[in-house]
């Protein structure tokens, strides 16, 4: 697999760190991990994409699914650290208007705790 996923939970705050390339081959792994975390009630789910060098529509679909789960469970979700090439797919699909996207951990944290 060319993707690594690390999750850290502190109370209602969950940080998911994704590294590598997210495509049709690796997105099932991301889906399994992130949906497990998104199942909790009233969570603040922060997804760190700083080390993601590539994402296709299956990766984006996985994040849409996670967002829907989080919203249904009364929580909120923020993405941060998107590289230009990864940001591009969100813009191409206009999902940059759907997700809360912040530039780095500090600004994402500010949004979560606001």
């Amino acid at each position, binding site marked *: 697999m060319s993707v690594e996923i690390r999750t850290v939970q502190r109370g209602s705050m969950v940080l998911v760190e994704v590294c590598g390339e997210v*495509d049709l081959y690796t997105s099932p792994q991301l889906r399994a991990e992130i949906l497990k975390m998104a199942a909790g009630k009233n969570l603040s789910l922060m997804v760190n994409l700083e080390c993601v060098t590539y994402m*296709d529509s299956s990766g984006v*679909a*996985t994040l849409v699914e996670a967002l829907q789960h989080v919203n249904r469970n009364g929580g909120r979700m923020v993405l941060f650290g998107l590289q230009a090439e990864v940001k591009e*797919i969100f813009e*191409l699909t206009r999902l940059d208007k759907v997700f809360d996207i912040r530039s780095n951990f500090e600004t994402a944290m500010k949004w979560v705790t606001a």
Partner: protein
Amino acid sequence: MSSDAAFLRVLRSAVDQICALAGFSKMDSSKIVLAVDEACSNVIRHAYKNKPGKPIVVTCHILPTKLEITLTDQGEAAEISSIQPRALDDVRPGGLGVHIIRTVMDEVQYENLAAVGNRLVMCKYLPKENRS
């Protein structure tokens, strides 16, 4: 390449290098790579129903005014009229590949091949300074 998603990263690397040879910027190259990856993923998922080991022939030609990329498969023939981008206002997982391909590429043509198989020809016009 084989219809195995593990090979997609190899294809992306090759297409990226061809885009650089054709004179595309880093950002344009990454969009073209994304479009080709989406097209190939669609072949794996829809034409071959996720069965590995089936052939997908990808050819790239740098022509005087455009980069032409052709994908040919021997999978289930698609109904051409059904290959449509979906409305983006409908926020749900999946179904974005065709939208990405049509947005990124300048020319997109799907064809059925006789009883089985599909061919997709996608073109991107070269940057003006690289046209001959």
